[in-house]
């Protein structure tokens, strides 16, 4: 056991899924040609003024309410002044001493029990542009600036320093992202930068109350990298302390390729942001009635869906997996309602659907069998119209074909054998082909009966009705 404790606070920037930017009408679509989604306002030209996007406010408030924050009836925008080539006004409009949301928390799982990571605040702000450093000629450094991202709405979600390991940070991020995606306020895509995370990391001897000196780590482009970076930084700081040194407060950049956090050049971090209230925007006043209406319209959140699923008899673990994304839980809900059997639907998604998706790296949206067809299939199995084995054959066929399972059953000759005559005929064939085992069963060796059932299923390529073939076999065995 280490004698030290890691203390982590995370700052997550989430891009809100609004169609237009936070202070102008420009589109927020990702991937457009550089500097095509810009206007005088997001270019910061002389004389322009910001006009607040109401939808961005709504999305931020939804997030706050979903994580139990107190939504401020009055919050204030502030200018964060710093000079950077991709910041066209020379300041970022953000919130400072009066943020939109205060408090709240995110529940994570630690060793099988629930731990709440408190939130300090959630505030609204605009994104800056993007600096691009293309490979240039030898000795020539070129930087290009793309302002398509300038003015895209963000929320910054700041956690309390209550995270104690990289693994906890990972789980926190997974759950936070899940909430954002369920609310449909953020697409959660880290590669496209719609979710970004900075970590403040310090260590202290176990049992001590005071925090150690923290380092801020930036530039982590996946949840796994956040976990790795925190582990790396924890080790680094412990080594410094063990060797009698002192941790310096600094900003580090995570280098994922080499798995190390490297100091940023000090020039870039000595900021005095000179915050002051943004005079171009009035304080943001929200009617309590409006906040309540947003609360009433909140969609079902992941933990609420999970609770409902477990009440249907679905195991905790499965409920966890099925609620991973809103799309997956919707897929499940539709399948289950079609099938009329939630548990069986869950089994099929957990094993068959996810098995193939994991192998092929498919999202649930891309999966070729939609819930209506899977639901029909599960329904046929649930009602005993086909066996699970036939169901699997059908499932394989459905992956590449568009027909319904009912149509496929017919066209592929997979119709179950469940009429008395056919079953009796099948039973007779099996008994005739296996005289030895048949004799054993007649002599009372019950275990061999299963063998005969298996042979019948094999012979019928799984089409024989699993219970009725047993009856048929018994009856035929008694006859002879």
């Amino acid at each position, binding site marked *: 056991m280490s004698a030290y404790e890691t203390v982590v606070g995370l700052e997550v920037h989430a891009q809100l899924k609004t169609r237009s930017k936070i202070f102008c009408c420009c589109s927020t679509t990702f991937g457009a040609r550089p500097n095509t989604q810009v206007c005088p306002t997001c270019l910061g030209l*002389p004389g322009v*003024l910001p006009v607040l996007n109401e939808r961005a406010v709504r999305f931020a408030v939804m997030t706050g309410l979903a994580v139990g924050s107190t939504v401020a009836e009055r919050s204030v925008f502030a200018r964060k002044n710093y000079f950077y080539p991709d910041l066209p006004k020379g300041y970022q409009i953000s919130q400072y001493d009066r943020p939109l949301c205060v408090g709240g928390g995110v529940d994570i799982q630690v060793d099988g029990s629930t731990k709440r990571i408190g939130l300090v605040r959630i505030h609204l702000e605009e994104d800056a542009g993007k600096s691009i450093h293309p490979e240039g000629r030898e000795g020539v450094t070129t930087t290009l600036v793309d302002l398509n991202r300038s003015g895209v709405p963000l929320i910054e979600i700041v956690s309390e320093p209550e995270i104690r390991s990289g693994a906890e940070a990972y789980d926190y991020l997974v759950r936070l992202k899940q909430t954002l995606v369920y609310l449909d306020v953020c697409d959660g895509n880290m590669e496209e930068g719609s979710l970004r995370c900075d970590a403040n990391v310090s260590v202290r001897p176990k049992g001590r109350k005071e925090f150690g000196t923290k380092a801020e780590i930036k530039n982590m482009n996946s949840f796994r990298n956040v976990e790795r970076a925190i582990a790396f930084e924890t080790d680094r700081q412990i080594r410094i302390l063990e060797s009698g040194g002192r941790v310096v407060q600094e900003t580090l950049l995570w280098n994922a390729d080499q798995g190390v956090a490297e100091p940023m050049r000090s020039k870039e971090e000595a900021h005095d942001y000179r915050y002051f209230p943004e005079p171009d925007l009035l304080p943001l006043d929200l009617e309590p009635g409006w906040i309540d209406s947003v609360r009433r319209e909140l969609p079902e959140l992941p933990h609420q869906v999970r609770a409902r699923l477990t009440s249907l008899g679905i195991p905790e673990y499965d409920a966890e997996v099925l609620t991973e994304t809103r799309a997956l839980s919707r897929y499940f809900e539709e399948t289950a309602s079609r099938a009329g059997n939630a548990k069986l639907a869950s089994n099929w998604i957990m094993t068959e659907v996810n098995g193939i998706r994991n192998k092929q790296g498919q999202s649930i949206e891309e999966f070729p069998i939609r819930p209506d067809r899977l639901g029909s299939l599960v329904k046929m199995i649930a009602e005993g119209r086909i066996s699970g084995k036939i169901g699997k054959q059908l499932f394989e066929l459905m992956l590449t074909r568009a027909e319904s399972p009912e149509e496929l059953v017919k066209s592929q000759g997979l119709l179950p054998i469940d009429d008395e005559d056919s079953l009796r005929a099948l039973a007779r064939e099996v008994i005739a082909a296996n005289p030895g085992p048949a004799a054993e069963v007649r002599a009372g060796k019950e275990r061999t009966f299963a063998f005969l059932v298996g042979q019948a299923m094999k012979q019928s390529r799984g089409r024989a009705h699993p219970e009725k073939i047993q009856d048929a076999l018994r009856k035929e065995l008694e006859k002879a």
Partner: protein
Amino acid sequence: MSPEIVAQETAESIGRAVQSRERSAVDVARTFLDRAERTASRLGTYLHRDPAATLAMAADVDARLGAGETLGPLAGVPVALKDNLCAHGVPTTCGSRILEGYRPPYDASVVIRLRDAGAVFTGKTNCDEFAMGSSTENSAYHPTRNPWDLERVPGGSSGGSAATVAALEAPLALGSDTGGSVRQPAAFCGVYGLKPTYGAVSRYGLVAFASSLDQIGPLARTARDTALLYNAICGRDERDMTSRAEAKPIPVEELERGVRGMKLGIPRDLTAEGLDPEIRASLDGVAKALAEEGAEILDVTLPHARYSIATYYLIAPAEASSNLARYDGVRYGFRAKSEDLRSMYEATRGQGFGREVRRRILLGTYALSAGYYDAYYLRAMKVRTLIRKDFSDALERADAILLPTTPTPPFKLGEKVDDPLAMYLNDVFSIPASLAGAPALSFPTGMTRSGLPIGMQLVGRPFAEGTLLRIARTWERRNPDGLRVPPLAEGRA
């Protein structure tokens, strides 16, 4: 020039003549362009003129009227724009080197409204760089001279707008007022200048100096003309979240209703010291005349107004330091030649901004810095709240406050350029209303013995611009020689 002709040259009579098609907008434009041709270069009123574009605009107004379109009272009326107002494709420098060659790709909201109303732009008027100054000597290009005395300043920062109206180069002009930049030059040039209530006019497209104080305001030669221009630009604009629907056009006929029963407060505490004797005499004369018209004159106090200059010179530079951060030489305007990015930034800002602008950026940056914010910016904001309360208290007792616009008549060019503090003190009477966000009007009340204009100021309740103009109009009616024209405009100088 006879008083009759001068009177015909009001915006009101021009608009009426153009609307009724007695006179073409092109003819009006030619008249004013010719006059500007004779005087503008001597006065230094403009930074950019394009007579062809002005005539084309006028021709368009005639065509619209010809096609049966109904235009308002500003149809065919020439209007000058201060050079910190953006008009699509028209050079906009704010009197600064750093915006040399910059042409905005969009129109300010006031510009859109004036185009729609059929106004015709005469050009972009000179001003102190980024509206920082009280004499128009801080323009990076050239100073503007006072039409009444070419050795003297026209005031500032909207000196070009005030001078162009005084010299009859345009019947109307827009300026911007942050601490007095419409009112003080109006007083120095003998014209009307209105700083509307903060939020009454959209700031969209006004290049920002101090965003919580900036307001665009009209300059004109009569009270009624001032109302007409105000009416065309006031009101809520969805592009400016600080603009307000309470700002409504003023029915011009209401300006004729006199002041009987109105209460006018004079802040004796503020005007006790440092006032030029001729200005004091004018203040007393105006108070007496308005009392004769039936107004009640009473004393009011503005106990915190004496902290106005200190407060203003923390808040305005703080906001300016942030507003002016965007000028880096990369995307538009002036760029200094340099070896690398960082030194390019430094050289661009060092060479592109003038002395006064650099001074205020430094002041403002300092006032907002960690460790100083509470002592400077935050405290200034608290005092501002007290000043605002002073006004609302005083305006509970009085319908308007009457005080001089400036402590002295126009000073000479060069007289105060090396003494920023003396220059700042010239705004002692105009800054308090700016901090309070209250509407304030400067109107011409006479001339000094040496022939320099004097202006008095009226400050009112929020959105009571009409009340201020009504009081000024009452004074104007008693003084039919009020429409005075400088000798230069008559071709005598």
